[in-house]
């Protein structure tokens, strides 16, 4: 937990440096290529793709596939485009990420700073959650959702994702708070701050980096989830991923590859955005100077 330093790179010779850059560029290209092709083909008319030239630059530039994917493409039986499902995803992702992160932070806080008998065992059990495959929880989860009367709804999906993500977020925050100086908590106790006040005023403001990690992790996982969405959502609560699948695999009419590409990029955009916006906070150490050193 110290300030990220930029001067710890080993100084290297010119040739080595050129080699390193070459490799980096090579790998970056390798990873960016599929995405590039997707972008290229999403701005072509369908005829250019079916004409057989997927790799070439578009001869006619058009944003039509994007609008279509968003507004009017056939998803299942309705020609709604991905738009409503995009909102469904957002309505699911925001509460789920927020709740699981806050609860994970609270768990980590309690497990490290308000130790109680059996806390390590409890934490060990919570860690199991990180290793349980999705498929195993499907049936019990369906029972629980039915019992609670929120099956097939967005709140139901939020619950599923919160429960499934809690193991991870707890792990992150516990490990982060483990090295958080306990003397700070003691000082705050003497100053008269209670359990939640300490959490809110002392712990959370110093948790920037780990909050970012938790949010990125949870956002990516929940946004990209297909299995839970496909299993537990009704038509009016289906997330983007399920809709994308329906778009691509709808069997009626011609396959509009350009629309499919645009839809796939649309579905991937939010996670991309989260990485770009939050990624730089990843490394920022907010704890500098709380204690000596």
């Amino acid at each position, binding site marked *: 937990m110290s*300030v990220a330093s930029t001067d710890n790179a080993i100084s290297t010779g010119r040739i080595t440096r050129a080699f390193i850059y070459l490799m980096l560029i090579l790998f970056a290209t390798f990873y960016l290529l599929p995405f590039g092709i997707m972008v290229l083909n999403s701005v072509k008319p369908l005829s250019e793709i079916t004409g057989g030239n997927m790799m070439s630059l578009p001869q006619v530039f058009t944003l039509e596939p994007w609008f279509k994917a968003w507004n009017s493409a056939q998803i299942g039986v309705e020609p709604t485009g991905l738009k409503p499902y995009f909102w469904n995803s957002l309505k699911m992702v925001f509460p789920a990420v927020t709740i699981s992160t806050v609860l994970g932070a609270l768990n980590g806080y309690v497990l490290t700073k308000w130790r109680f008998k059996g806390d390590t065992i409890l934490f060990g059990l919570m860690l199991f959650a990180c290793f349980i495959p999705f498929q195993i929880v499907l049936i019990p989860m369906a029972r629980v959702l039915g019992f609670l009367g929120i099956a097939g709804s967005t709140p139901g999906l939020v619950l599923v994702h919160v429960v499934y993500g809690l193991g991870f977020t707890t792990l992150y925050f516990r490990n982060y708070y483990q090295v958080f*100086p306990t*003397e*700070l908590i*003691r*000082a*705050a*106790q*003497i*100053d*008269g*701050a209670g359990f939640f*006040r300490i959490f809110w*005023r*002392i712990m959370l*403001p*110093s948790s920037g980096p780990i909050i970012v990690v938790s949010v990125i992790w949870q956002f990516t996982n929940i946004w990209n989830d297909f299995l839970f969405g496909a299993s537990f959502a009704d038509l009016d609560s289906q997330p983007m991923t399920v809709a994308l699948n329906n778009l691509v695999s709808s069997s009626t009419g011609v396959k509009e590859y350009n629309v499919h590409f645009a839809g796939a990029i649309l579905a991937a955009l939010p996670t991309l955005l989260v990485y770009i916006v939050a990624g730089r906070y990843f490394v920022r150490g*907010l*704890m*500098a*100077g*709380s*204690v*000596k050193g």
Partner: protein
Amino acid sequence: MSFLKINNATKSYGSTKVLHNIDIDVQEGEFLVLVGPSGCGKSTLLNMIAGLEDITSGTIAIKGQTMNGVHPSKRNIAMVFQSYALYPNMTVGQNITFGLEMHGVAKPAREKAMSDVAEMLQIKPLLGRKPGQLSGGQRQRVAMGRALVRDPDVFLFDEPLSNLDAKLRVDMRTEIKKLHQKLGTTIVYVTHDQIEAMTLSTRIAVMNGGYVQQLGTPKEIYDNPANLFVASFMGSPSMNLVPAKVVANGDGIFAQLPTGLSDQVNLKFSNPTEALKGFDQKEIVLGIRPEAITDPEGADRKANHIEQITNRVIVTEPAGSDTYVMSSLGGKDCNARMRADAQVVAGQDVPFAINMDKAIPFDPSSEMRIA
């Protein structure tokens, strides 16, 4: 009635007892230092006073009120931690006023208290900074400011200077002492540095292994250590502890021991106690502080009885203000403090003057002072 009363307090973690029946009374305005080696339970005792650790048995009372089970924030104490424990997300000003805010003090009053304290500690220019932007000494000041602003009944310090470099430590030591003289607040201060303990305290509790070994003024502790542990722990360089045999005859009571020249010398006790007479022909440990062994010219003229012996110098260590001279006494290395310009050379036989007023006999089996 004492201001802070620790009555028969013990602390156990499970089956391990880390503090045994601690009894300490602190009067209002006293500066009590808890000193002892690492792991002796100083911090634990301090945390019990603060309410951060619960008391296994016994009581701790402040101003006549039992504090067992009372929340730390309700004890009207303030604490300065070894790591300073400044809230990293708050500015210096916010750090200082956080406690007042939590206690519901109105903003104008908070601001006033903050500026008074900042004035006193000369940290006004730092109020807007974050702890990460401060030097070690400045952080230390801010931590003190945070404690001072509360105007507590008792200040608790847990090794507040141990993270500072040597020079700053001495400066801050003086500053804390000045502050205590000015404010007259009751202070309990933990350190493992015996010089800090001597210079700051009005009374010292020397602790070891969860027991208070001795409680007394710095002078009592230094001049009349209750046992071998206190004798060796307090003082720098530490007290010479050499085995000797007690010999009583018509002329008085003597400690008989060999010098480095392998002849026996008899050192006459100035004021032998009755108890010491009972040790006739028995082995004791004789404690003599380095400054009680000098060159004859440098000996204390007011001393009742000075023994002069000749001994061989093993090594000399000039320390600027004094020269420390090592010789062998009773089969052990014996440190003597001579004037800086005393003419001594390693390998020579030179006269040593031993101030027997300051010689303290210990019982080697019980390790207690013979008194």
